């Protein structure tokens, strides 16, 4: 049986948060949700932009191709797939869990799971974006040592689409990194 002062102290602790704590928790949860929605839109848009980029040049010869689609280059395929995976993760798992944390400043376990999965998705997105970036750089500049011609001169529309998609994906990566830091802050605050 609890003694008087001890009971009062524990009652105050489990009472619900004192106002400054509750305000900060709400702000963090709202920020988390907003950034997650923005990252979802970013990755979805990047994946769709790269996936629907298609350009056919109006002339052709017997031996040389004049069509550019994302699945001609394996790095771009990986990029589209990775963006799809990350946006699916954010839609199915990330945003519902974030909403849950907003409604109930709830358990630490789901926050930890969210951080771990966010880190894995960030790693995947980083690898895909870097691989695609090196290919897109090649497409812009070519390489004289390997005698690889810059294809951007011919496939201008495809090139612009690719580059824009990559930039959107880099922005989504930054947002994911911010999400991880925010979740870390939220977890460390709960320990009080």
């Amino acid at each position: 049986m609890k003694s008087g002062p001890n009971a009062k102290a524990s009652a105050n602790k489990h009472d619900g948060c004192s106002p400054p704590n509750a305000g900060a928790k709400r702000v963090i949860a709202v920020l988390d949700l907003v950034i997650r929605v923005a990252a979802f839109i970013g990755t979805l848009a990047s994946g769709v932009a790269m996936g629907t980029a298609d350009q056919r040049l109006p002339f052709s010869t017997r031996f040389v191709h004049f069509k550019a689609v994302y699945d001609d280059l394996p790095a771009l395929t990986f990029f589209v797939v990775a963006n799809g995976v990350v946006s699916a993760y954010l839609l199915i798992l990330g945003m519902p869990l974030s909403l849950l944390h907003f409604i109930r400043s709830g358990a630490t376990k789901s926050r930890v799971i969210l951080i771990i999965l966010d880190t894995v998705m960030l790693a995947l997105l980083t690898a895909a974006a870097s691989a695609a970036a090196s290919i897109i750089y090649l497409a812009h500049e070519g390489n004289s040592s390997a005698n690889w011609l810059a294809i951007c001169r011919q496939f201008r529309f495809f090139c612009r689409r690719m580059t824009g998609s990559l930039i959107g994906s880099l922005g989504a990566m930054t947002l994911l990194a911010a999400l991880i830091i925010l979740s870390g802050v939220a977890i460390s605050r709960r320990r009080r």
Partner: protein
Amino acid sequence: MKDSTSVDIPETSADARGEAPLFTGKSSSGGGIIYAHKPSSAQKKGLAIFDLILRISAIVTCLAAATAMGTAEQTLPFTTQFFKFDAGYDDMPSFLVFVICFGIASCYFLLSLPFSIVSIIRPQASGPRILLVIFDTMVLGLTMASAAAATSIVYLAHNGNSSTNWLGVCQQFTDFCQATSGAVVGSFIAVAIIALMLILSGASLRKH
């Protein structure tokens, strides 16, 4: 007259080392034993020693990858007026970034050895560990990105691409190709080591 059975017990030395079950007089339920599931001092020390070993192997692996890529160079014995026939790592920006990033990573791991040693000597101090976790995460991202970029170029060098009319150069530059492929494989191992290091640091930092 108090109903509680709270007992005041001074902190034992085992408690200070983090090895005793938490048995304080300040618990809210009036003096029950609360077993802490946080890792004991011995476990943290073991994890820290393993972390040091991983760190040393990460230095070696990153340095090996950077060196293998940096010394990859080949000049073919014939030339024509318009085409170049030599290849070095600085001809491809991805390879240049690869060498620079893995050089930075191996220097970072060298400089982080003192912090790792400190966390072996004082297993309960979480300051050095947190610092290492932050910087390890940054280095993981850096190395992973440069490894991925170099991989796509190496794949292109091996296979070429028919849609963009880029020929695979590995048929001519066999030595250069082998060296860069080996460097990329080594970089994957380095990234795996760094990721394992990060997971272990996280495991030893937990408090519950």
